[in-house]
């Protein structure tokens, strides 16, 4: 009985400790960002591995998500004779929800896990402590550039996802199902608002980029420095990122679109 309480207490304290470390880590990362503008090539390097290498999966998934939306939406809308609204359906669902959320999930799987594994391996091979020995702050030199790159890359990836998805919806709607292309675009333009829909979508993706990169870097930095520990940290990154994305998406959606 005493042991149970003791382990419960240890678990609770451990959770709080991890939370505290994660936030201190975030604070240190944010402190490291201003110095990066003097050495922007570090960020560019990371933008390549975080952003450019994720483009392919974003392009292909976006195209197929848009095409599926086109097909499914058409089947429902045609019953009401409203198949011209297909453009609105595709654009709003992509710009508001699917673009930011699905690309953030893909980003967590593609780039977040890679970041965790990279940082975790650096830790387990003692490269991070080596840097500290040389009086180089690994948080500023290694982690902050990755963090900034993640925040920059995520909204761009989400925008690419949405744009390609709308094109995919158009291809299916116009090319395959014969929806009038003028009505498709004009109804989309009439119902999609620059601030309410597109800007809010961009805000969402910035928030997701922030959270996913933070989780990935922290898990890597906090991993047990063994191959098993790094593996577990990578798994945790993907799982926790998915939870954070979906939970935050609900909160953000309630804040942005809840009062309509």
């Amino acid at each position, binding site marked *: 009985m005493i042991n149970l309480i003791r382990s419960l207490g240890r678990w609770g304290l451990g959770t709080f400790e991890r939370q505290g470390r994660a936030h201190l880590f975030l604070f240190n990362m944010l402190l490291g960002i201003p110095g990066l503008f003097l050495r922007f*090539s570090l960020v*560019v*390097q990371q*933008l*390549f591995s975080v*952003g*450019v290498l994720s*483009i392919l999966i974003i392009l292909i998934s976006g195209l197929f998500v848009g095409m599926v939306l086109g097909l499914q939406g058409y089947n429902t809308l045609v019953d009401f004779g409203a198949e011209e609204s297909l453009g609105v359906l595709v*654009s709003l669902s992509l*710009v508001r929800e699917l673009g930011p959320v699905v690309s953030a999930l893909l980003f967590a799987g593609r780039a977040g896990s890679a970041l965790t594994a990279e940082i975790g391996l650096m830790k387990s091979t003692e490269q991070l402590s080596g840097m500290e020995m040389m009086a180089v702050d690994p948080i500023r030199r290694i982690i902050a550039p990755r963090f900034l790159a993640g925040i*920059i*890359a995520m*909204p*761009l*990836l989400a*925008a*690419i996802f*949405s*744009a*390609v998805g*709308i094109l995919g919806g158009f291809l299916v709607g116009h090319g395959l199902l014969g929806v009038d292309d003028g009505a498709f*675009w004009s109804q*989309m*333009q*009439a*119902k*999609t*608002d*620059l601030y309410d*829909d*597109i800007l809010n979508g*961009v805000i969402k993706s910035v928030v997701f980029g922030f959270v996913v990169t933070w989780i990935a870097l922290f898990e890597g930095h906090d991993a047990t420095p063994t191959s098993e520990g790094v593996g577990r940290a990578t798994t945790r990154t993907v799982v926790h990122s998915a939870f954070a994305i979906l939970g935050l998406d609900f909160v953000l959606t309630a804040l942005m679109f809840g009062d309509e």
Partner: protein
Amino acid sequence: MMQNKSTEIFVGMFVAAGLAALFMLAMKVSNLGDFTDETGYQVTAEFENIGGLKVRSAVTMAGVRVGRVASINLHPVTYNAEVTINMYPQFDNLPLDTSASIYTAGLLGEQYIGLVAGAEEEFLQDGDVIDLTQPALVLEQVIGQFLYSKAEGDE
């Protein structure tokens, strides 16, 4: 060095593609195009009932869009809906006795204001009021009236 160069090129292309996608979303998908000529003049109209009219709903004349609804308020004295319309500047020759009605696009579509030109020689100016208005058709009222007149006819 070579490796570094191509990395930079790819990153540049990535950022350019992302910005192009954002630009396409803004220009092609959203209603940004409508914002460009919003420096028109404003007129107001009072309606008994505006139904489902919203801010930014379309204002048309003969089916051509001539403006947008800028704001909707409740008149404190008459308890009518006071709708401010932002007219596009190129349509500055509408007669003073133009009338406004609220229509529905299609059976279930959005509601919009339709203007019909009058015969007055003077034109609507900034701050003018459209006096001749016709409220939105509320489906329940129409059905109620229909049932009422039907019942009367039976007797």
